[in-house]
Structures are given as C-alpha cells and as structure tokens.
C-alpha cells in the first residue's frame, strides 16, 4: 500500500479563517460565551438558494483549503478525488429547523437538507467531486476514522487524493447542547475544516489510543470544542508549526479515543 501525506488543511472557525486566527486560549477568549458562532459564508447564486449554513461552511472550508494548497478547482474535480465527510452534529440545525420551524409555521426546510449527506453533496456538486464517498457520524474519534479511510482510499489506489471534511454548528441547537453538558466543554466553536491527503512518504497506522496526544490537547486549548473538526484543526496547527511525520493524532468522542500515527516509511 502506498504511503500518504497531508498536503494542506483549510480551516474556518468562529474565530476567523485559518490556524492563525485561533486564540492562544479559547476559554479565555470566549469570555464566558457558550457558543462562538461562525458567520454564514457569503456565497450567492441560485444554486445555493436552499443550501443551509452548514453546507456553505463546508464549501468555504474547501475553498480555504484550495487557497492554502495553492490549487485551482479544476485540480480536484472528478473521480480521482475521494470525499470523506465527518460530523457529530452538523445535521442538528437542519433537523431543528424541520421539526420546530415546520411545526410552528407549516413551512418546512427542504427535507433533503436534513440528511447528513446534504453538506458533502453540496460540496461535491460545487467542486465536481465524483470519486469515492464516505460519510461518518461522530466527534473527533470519527474524524480519525475518516482520516484512516482517506489513507486507505489513496494508499490502495482508489483515487489520487482525498479530502477529509468536517463541519460543526451549534447555534440553532444551543439549548439541546446545554442539556448534554457532560459531553463537551465550552466554548462550543462552530467550525469547518478540510484536509487534503495525497500519496506521500509516510505510513499511517490506525489504532485505539489510551491517552490524548499533544496535538489533540493543543487543538482544544487553541480552538475550544470543535467536535469532528478538532483533528483537522490539530493538523492545521501541526503544519503551521512546521510539523511533519512522524506525528500522532488522536480524537475522543463519548468515551472512545482513536489514534492515527504517521511514520516515515
């Protein structure tokens, strides 16, 4: 199996775009705010008429990735690009809108946008992605699973590159998240992040992890609670710090911690 490397990471959070926008201490920067919201990306056009905010955040994360990697859209278009999408709660806002707003007014959000697959669908349509396609649900541990899936897709030659995308929003369901406060530590920071994996010199090893990696701790400290986006933000921070293999990435969600280590071949 071919090795892989992380070529670039695009990040959009409630703090701004890129790893450089993250505060040094998210808890202090939040100053007691429970949710740090990300603005609706200013994408316009008939095609986005029905798209939800989380769909647009997904598109914005891929655009940030392309800027970071200095790539044109055409370079990722087609069946040689895999798309792996991960979220713990990205469908929550749409579900909330369909259930609550629909019940109150009779008007309903276009139902297909309640599906978790709506976000990657809009991204795939926007960038013409027609390759391998996997959607995983869960927090940071699921993103580790997603990164592992991406290394398999690239390593086994199913595609030439893979995008691992995560999107999390909280504002619409803030009251529900407040009930489940044992699940996560505020501030909850709305985020979208996308990593590009390509063939490379490092071999990725996927295994359960018993302890938090330094990168997991760093991402939490700098960004706050970003659920499935956390491992991708950790990758962005590692790259910003000049990090290259070997390095170890972990992600935890609801009692399960998964790990992925990139080591030189």
């Amino acid at each position, binding site marked *: *199996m071919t090795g892989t490397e992380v070529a670039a990471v695009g990040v959009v959070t409630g703090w701004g775009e890129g790893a450089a926008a993250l505060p040094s201490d998210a808890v202090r920067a939040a100053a007691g705010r429970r949710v740090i919201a990300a603005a609706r990306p200013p994408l316009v056009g008939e095609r986005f008429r*029905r798209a939800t905010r989380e769909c647009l955040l997904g598109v914005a994360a891929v655009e940030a990735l392309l800027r970071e990697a200095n790539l044109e859209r055409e370079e990722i278009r087609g*069946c040689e690009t895999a*798309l792996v999408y991960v979220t*713990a*709660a990205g*469908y*929550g806002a749409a*579900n*909330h809108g*369909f*259930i*609550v707003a*629909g019940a109150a007014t009779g008007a*309903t959000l*276009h*139902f*297909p*946008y309640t*599906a*978790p*697959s*709506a976000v*990657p*669908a*809009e991204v*795939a*349509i926007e*960038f013409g*992605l*027609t*390759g*391998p*396609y*996997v*959607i*995983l*649900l*869960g927090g940071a541990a*699921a993103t580790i*699973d997603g990164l*592992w*899936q991406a290394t*398999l897709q690239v390593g*086994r*030659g*199913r595609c030439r590159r893979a995008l691992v995308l995560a999107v999390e929003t909280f504002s619409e369901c803030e009251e*529900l*998240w407040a*009930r*489940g*406060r*044992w*699940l996560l530590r505020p501030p909850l920071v709305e985020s979208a992040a996308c990593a590009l994996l390509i063939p490379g010199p490092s071999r990725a090893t*996927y*295994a*359960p992890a018993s302890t938090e990696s330094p990168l997991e701790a760093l991402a939490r400290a700098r960004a706050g609670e970003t659920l499935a986006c956390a491992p991708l933000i950790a990758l962005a921070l590692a790259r910003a710090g000049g990090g290259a293999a070997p390095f170890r990435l972990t992600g935890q969600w*609801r009692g*399960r911690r*998964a790990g992925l280590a990139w080591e030189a071949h």
Partner: protein
Amino acid sequence: MKTEPVAIIAAGAVTPIGADLDAFWTGLVTGTDGVSRIERFPVGDLRVGLGGEIKKLKRERRGDCRASQLLFAAADDLRARASLDAPPARVAVVLGTALGGVEEGEKALAGDPSARRAAAALYDGPARALALRLGARGPVITVSTACASGATALGVAADLLRSDAADLVVAGGYDILCRFVMRGFDALRSLTRDRVRPFDRRRSGLLLGEGAALVLLARDRDAGERRLGRLLGHASASDGAHVAAPDPEGRGLEWAIRAALAEAEVGAADIDFVSAHGTATPLNDRVEAAVLRRVLGACAERIPVNAIKGALGHTMGAAATLEAIMCLLASREGVVPHTVGLEEHDPECELDFVVTAPRAVRPRVSLSTSLGFGGCNAALVLEGDAR
C-alpha cells in the same frame, strides 16, 4: 494488489415481513406484503400513511429508543447463529443509518427536557448502544450515506478487518419509521398512493419501511468453515450532481459498480444475480436500469435481477444490508425471490427481472446496488456459499 475477501459468517434481521432471518426469507419467497397502515404514530394529516411498519417488537427495556430496540432484536437473531468469539477490544461495530436517533430529537424538541433524550438524538447513539450490549470495545463507527448506508457500512467494516483494526465486525444498517421521515417524504411527494412497483411501467413512488439487519464479518482466513458467504468487493461514489435526485446519467452508480467489480476481480460475465436498489420512483429505476445495462453489457440478457422494496418498503439504512443478506440466502437456498409489485414491463427498464414467482437459480456471485440522498452510490459484490 488483490483485495482479501471478507467472510460473512452469519446474519440477523428484523423486518416488516419477518421478525428474524428465517421469517424474512420465508416472507420474500412467499411474496409477503409488509406494507400496512402505520399505527405507532399519527399519520392522519399526511398524504400517505402507509409503510413497512414492524407491528410487534419485543420491548427490551424502558428507555431504549426504537432504533436501538430494532438493533437489539437483529443482534439477538445474529447471536443465535454465531458467537462473538474474539477479545472485546478486537470486536468492532459499524452501522449505517439515514436517520439515527432523530425520533429522540423530535421528542426532545417537543417538550421532553431530559439530557438523556437530547443525547439520544445524536445519530451515532444506536451504534454505541449496540456495542455496549454486545460488549464490543473495538471501533464503533456510524456511516450515513443516506439510503446506501447499509452497503457503505459493510465496506468500512471490511476495511477494518483488512487493516487488522479488528478481528470480528458486527456490521449492517437500521432505520425506523417516524413522523420526521414520513413528514419529509410526504412533503416531497415521493410516496405512492398505489403499491410499490419497482421497475414497473406504472410505478409512482416509494413507501418507507423500517428494519435492522446485521452481519458478522471476519477475515476469510480466520473464519474457518463457518460462512454464509463472502464480500468480494465494495465501492462507494458521489454523483456530485444533485442533493436529492440521482444523476440522470447514473455516473456515480456506474463508477461504484465498476470499482466494486474491479476490487472483487470479477467481470460482468461472472455475475449470476443482481439485487437492484429499485425504489420504484420513476427516475431512480430508469437510471439504475440503464446503468446496469451499460455495465453488464450483453450479459444483462441472462442475469436475473430483483428488487425487494415492493415487499418491505424502503427500509433506508437497513435496505442495502437486507439486500446483501438476501443475495447470500438466494445462493444457499437456490432460489431468487421475485420482485413484488412488478407486473407490467417498462420498456425503459429492460432487464431480466424475476417476476410473479421466485426463480430456481443458485447464484454464486451477486451484485447489489444502492443509491441515496446526497448523491450517494454504493455497490457490493458478494459470493454465496452454495454448499
């Protein structure tokens, strides 16, 4: 590089036509209609109130959501046929779902203030509940490629085994009927007032169903003699065309089928049977039939095809796993169930459909196809154990 096959050791299911695997198979070959008036929640305000509802379900424990209860029933059936004889840390759970715990979200937003209800609304909750019940402490993964979820889950499970991340995987799919999904499909006008008629000239839409289907997977070399069949190849692909409708050219589905066949190292001439997604919506069936004709070429004339959603309704996350299991049971029993609801030939869907009655054939290699919202497509290549 040849991809190692994965053994499917055993299966378990709960469906609208049967409360376990044997009853499911009997229902398929006898043409049982599992569609009825929905009784578990109000449907009087909906255009269509029919679905493949499971009427009787052993209630496990007050507090378990319905999705978990369906999974527990399927798991009990599975464990009656095979044991999870591996260390708990080496047993993984991979489940596909389109709706997860959304009914719990409805209840949470309708006035139930409990934290437990809010947490249960997360779509990965039922997979965690099943892992806990099984004592599985390996990876617990929830896949949600809409109505292709049950196929993608089997593919991810196979990857876990090939990567040596687990020794056994309980994999499959589930979904329940609830107000949320009925209201959604009703608003889309996707539900038929007629019966579900896959590939029929008069087809006018789908009806939803509920169910859970699980298989126990192991590396083929570790499975010994116990085997219902093998998963030879899988692939999933995006259409990149529309949020809700299939690509009119079926390019994503075609890519997925060709990639799955390549992984399995089989060609169209090796395929003995096709289990089609067959939702009975006008566009899905036309696109799917055209793709199958392109991929199978001249072999399409002799390969039997069926679709079982006419009997069950569309069980969403469970559908693809149920259809994969049906392929393996067809190999074991030497019979391919017929397509309930298909009576009038559609010239736009020219394939050798099994109609009217089951057909006595014993497929060795089967192809199962799936499509879902979000441009999700998946294909599985399965080999039955015909001994």
